[in-house]
């Protein structure tokens, strides 16, 4: 929790799309309180990162995040696989916001049922700055209570 003590939050981006990671990074750049500490391409990497396996054991270099932005449709392990894995861990402090282009009701309800803190539909940059920031900050505020 070193990041939050400094008044900022560590954000982990998990998305197989390089484009979407770029957009998110650009959007997050405009919020100094949100610091991207890592960018991962699939669910398996996310699980390795969160459990501090292998090279991710170095928490100086790979700090444990406050927020994970998690895409759903990814190769190897999907966002659902990560959510399922997370349920078995006791990482209650971690805010997991599912980010997806889909607005299918089953995607939304399944994500929330598997324990995601929020579901966010990917949008344009301007909108992300308005909506995603509010969602992240809101979820963090809820966690601190």
């Amino acid at each position, binding site marked *: 929790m070193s990041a939050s003590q400094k008044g900022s939050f560590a954000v982990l981006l998990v998305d197989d799309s390089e*484009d*979407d990671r770029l*957009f998110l990074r650009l959007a997050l750049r405009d919020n100094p309180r949100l610091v991207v500490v890592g960018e991962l391409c699939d669910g398996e990497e996310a699980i390795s990162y969160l459990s501090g396996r292998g090279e991710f054991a170095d928490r100086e270099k790979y700090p444990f995040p406050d927020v994970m932005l998690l895409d759903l449709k990814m190769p190897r392990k999907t966002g659902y696989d990560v959510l399922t894995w997370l349920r078995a861990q006791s990482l209650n402090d971690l805010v997991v916001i599912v980010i997806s*282009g889909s607005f299918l009701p089953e995607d939304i309800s399944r994500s929330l049922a598997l324990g995601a803190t929020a579901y966010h539909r990917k949008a*344009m940059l301007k909108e992300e700055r308005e909506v995603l920031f509010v969602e992240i900050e809101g979820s963090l505020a809820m966690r601190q209570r």
Partner: protein
Amino acid sequence: MPPEQQRTDKPGVFRGETPSPPDRAAILIVDDREDKRMAMETVVADLGEDIVKASSGKEALRCLLHQEFAVILLDVNMPGMDGFETAFLIRERKSSEHTPIIFVTAISDTENHVSRGYSLGAVDYILTPVLPDVLRTKVSVFVELFKKNRQLKRQAEHLQQARDELEIRVKNRTSQLADTNAALREEVVARQQAETELRLLNLELEQRIFERTSQLASSNQDLEAFTYSVAHDLEAPLRQMQGYAEIMEEQFTPLLPPEAVRYLERIRRRGENLRLMLEDLLNLSLIGKQELSRQTVNLNSLVDEVITSLKSETGERKIEWKAGDLPTVACDPGLLKLVFNNLLSNAVKYTRPRETAVIEIGQNNLGGEVSIFVRDNGVGLDMKNADRLFGVFQRLHRAEEFEGTGVGLAIVARIIRKHGGRIWADGEVGKGATFQFTLGNSTPLEQ
């Protein structure tokens, strides 16, 4: 004595159930002597029966050829063929073998005659000179016996006749039954055949239903996969292209010639159009899958909500809203709100050229069925294209005139159909349009 007189003497006979003519019995008197014949006739005549007289055995036999007798009074002593010979010949004949014979003989000969007579089948004897009472009594006994026999015979004949008739009737009935049975059997066979055919048809139908169902299931799966693919895979590159256009506009506008900036903006806008179309397509397919959740809904408050939200988007435009009295119905409120939202936004959109738009919402009674209508004074529609209105991506105007994806009315139609209702449009170019729909059986349960 004439027979008629005889009968009047015996009214009992006359009163008998049937006046069967040969009710009288016949008595044969055989004697060669006229006086003896006369004497016996006189005695026997009192019995009221027919009397036939023969003067010789030959004549007697002749009489027996034509007639049946209750009893024969046979003189023993006759010239030529005597009584015994005659009796022998009488017995020889089948028709008279049982006819009772009373021998008439003189006392002097009795011993001898009696034994011989009995051996020849005589049943009785009368001694001469004849005692009238004895003769009458004996004869009457045989007459009575004869009559009884005859009656029995007739009864037997009747019985036989009845039995024959019965047999015929039974036979007829049996053949009728046999016919009926045959017909029934045929019917059974026909029915069995029909049943077999029906079973085959059912099997065929089941097979076809099964095939159709699996086809539907597989096309449902395809549709599901397609929907998923649209939501996840088609959406992404489109959004990303727009994203880059957005970044270019945001970060590089000062470096670009104005023409390039305009093109960038166009790229972003067209992308936005495509995105909306994809979203509407997805919505359309989601509505198809969604289960109706019917609730009692007051359509007036639903319409008021929609109007309120539309008012915030219409800005300076002059729009006269006329919401009439609407019914309370059992429907899916979310979906019905979507219906009104689409229909009223369309009305707002297509009245844009009017200085004052008039949008009217009300109900009609179509022969017991309530319909809801939305009428506007907008640009109207050409009825030639009315059937295309509710199709997907069917647009009757150029995108430059009126924006939209061409999916809205398809969504509306799908929702109405899901409720079991119908939707149709009326209008004329330049004279406004009316959209009207029913909701099937949507009477609210409690009101």
